[in-house]
């Protein structure tokens, strides 16, 4: 009870506070593509911008398009030795470079030297990392830290610019699930996840959606740097709760698949008793949980090996303080 009271007080404080956070200007921005080599929207956008970057230049900032996993891009595969988007943790970044070190760990250290070091003052201000999914997630923004006012303000701006088209925000902050993403080396890491698109396929509609998100994101940075004050704002986000695996037999083989009623229903409410899986024999397995969850990454190709049929999320609201650049 007390805890709840304290929290509401805190929230009230936050909402009524007329203080505006002064954020350091965001000057150095990178756009990463090909962190997974078979997610082609980011691969081709970044390659295009490397040839012709006028579209991503904004006055007052320097924007660098960069292919993070060139060997995986060339082979059109997710990765060569291990998932690049899970190795930006102190252990891997600090590993001694030896002959047998996985390609992606070596690459992570290189990227950390170029755009980091992670957690340091000289790290890039902002990194957009471009991804695709086979799930029907639409154009999703991924937030790593619920306390980052700058990114929440940016997401609020992007959501408004894209409306009425929806732009869900996925918050991956969790006490046990640690991602160690490529973008996490920046002061402000932003994941962009657009689907559905098969691996190894480039769809014009998905490319366009991703392009618009980046356009509005860069516009926000420019306006912020120019000294505009952004009033406090609240956005709705989906916070990760847990990952759910496929039902398997004792040989670890999948014995049921995503139910047609759940397929393509990312971000839609899943209630107790709703179908989740369909077995080979045609039986339905229902959701047993008591509270409503919002599944996402439903039937993502790359997650079969990660033992993940979908991710459960809950809806929460995040409020950012008013924001202005400290330089103006």
């Amino acid at each position, binding site marked *: 009870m007390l805890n709840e009271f304290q929290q509401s007080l805190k929230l009230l404080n936050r909402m009524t506070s007329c203080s505006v956070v002064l954020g350091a200007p965001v000057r150095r921005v990178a756009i990463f593509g090909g962190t997974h080599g078979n997610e082609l929207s980011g691969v*081709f*956008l970044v*390659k*295009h911008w490397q*040839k*012709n970057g006028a579209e991503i230049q904004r006055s007052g900032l320097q924007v660098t398009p960069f292919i993070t996993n060139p060997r995986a891009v060339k082979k*059109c*595969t997710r990765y060569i030795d291990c998932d690049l988007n899970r190795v930006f943790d102190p252990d891997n970044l600090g590993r001694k470079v030896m002959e047998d070190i996985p390609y992606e760990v070596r690459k992570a250290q290189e990227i950390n030297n170029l755009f980091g070091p992670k957690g340091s003052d000289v790290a890039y201000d902002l990194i957009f990392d471009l991804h695709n999914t*086979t799930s029907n997630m639409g154009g999703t923004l991924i937030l790593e830290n619920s306390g980052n006012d700058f990114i929440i303000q940016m997401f609020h701006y992007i959501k408004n610019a894209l409306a009425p088209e929806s732009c869900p925000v996925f918050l991956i902050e969790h006490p046990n699930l640690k991602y160690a993403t490529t973008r996490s080396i920046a002061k402000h890491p932003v994941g962009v996840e657009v689907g*559905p*698109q*098969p*691996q*190894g*396929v*480039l*769809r*014009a*509609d998905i*490319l*366009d959606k991703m392009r618009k998100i980046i356009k509005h994101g860069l516009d926000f940075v420019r306006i912020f740097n120019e000294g505009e004050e952004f009033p406090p704002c609240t956005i709705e986000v989906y916070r990760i709760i847990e990952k759910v695996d496929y039902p398997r037999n004792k040989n670890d*083989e*999948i014995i049921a*698949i*995503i*139910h*047609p009623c759940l*397929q393509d229903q990312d971000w839609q409410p899943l209630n107790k008793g709703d179908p989740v899986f*369909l077995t*080979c024999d045609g039986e339905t397995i229902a959701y047993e949980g008591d509270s409503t969850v919002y599944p996402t990454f439903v*039937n*993502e*190709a*790359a997650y*079969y*090996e990660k033992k993940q049929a979908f991710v459960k999320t809950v809806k929460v609201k995040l409020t950012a303080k008013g924001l202005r650049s400290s330089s103006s």
Partner: protein
Amino acid sequence: MQEAACMAALQRLQPVSHVAVSGGTHGNEMSGIYLVKHWLREPSALQRDSFSATPFLANPLAIERCVRYVGRDLNRTFTKQFLNSKAAWDEPYEVQRAREINQLYGPKGSAQAFDFLFELHNTTANVGACLIASVQDNLLPMHLCHFIQTHCTLGHYPILLYNLPDQEAYSISSVAKHGLAFELGPQPQGVLRADLLTQMGALVACALDFIDLFNKGTTFPAFETEAYRFIGSVDYPRHPDGELCASVHSKLQDKDFLPLRPGDPIFQTFSGEEILYQGHATIYPVFINEAAYYEKKIAFNKTEKCSLSIPALQRE
């Protein structure tokens, strides 16, 4: 005139007793892999009064890695050149596997070959449930396609004739006397969708029912049907270094088997320009934006519509 008269006559073929169903010819096309694994555990679904079909996984190594192939595309390897080659230590895995499959279900062109071989495929293209036959072998497979079109209610089943008239058949089903491929999409590589899985299971069941009826002496009357005949392919526009400079146009994406007319948009460059179809005649594109065809330099295949007159059929 003479040809028409001949076409109308009842044709007879030997009964079909040796039937195989292959999944995982491409190791990341999941519907067939999942179904075949299920049938290997529980084969009763493949049993009929007059025969039992044999399920098998065609490319186990590719399946294990969830990739299309390990060394080369298995489904382009069932030609004399590869099947008659001597084993070599440095040959691609799929060449060795093609010879093995040829021994088990062929040999291609011989009297011992299996009577019928089904292949199960998926594509990222929006082809629906497409029935793919070879130009050269069309009597029994065409009756089978027609039976599916009239008895299977889950969708629309376009018939695609895949090879050029003078081209040797190269797919896995060509090792048997007759063959047919079920190509279901759109489904991403490495993903299992329940809707497509259900549809593929129903297609195989319907096909086996047809063979059973044929074996039991049913007469299948002559009919006319429409098919799409492969006539060539179109590559993506590329930069001089080979990199793509355009994607399939959003107006062409997902429009498999629909007419494409001269002047219709087919590509959009990353700088925003449209590229239009320059041909002189209406064509019917298929396999639009198939993931596995980027490396084959195919943005889509061109087909033309043709009508086929298929004579009546009964077993010998």
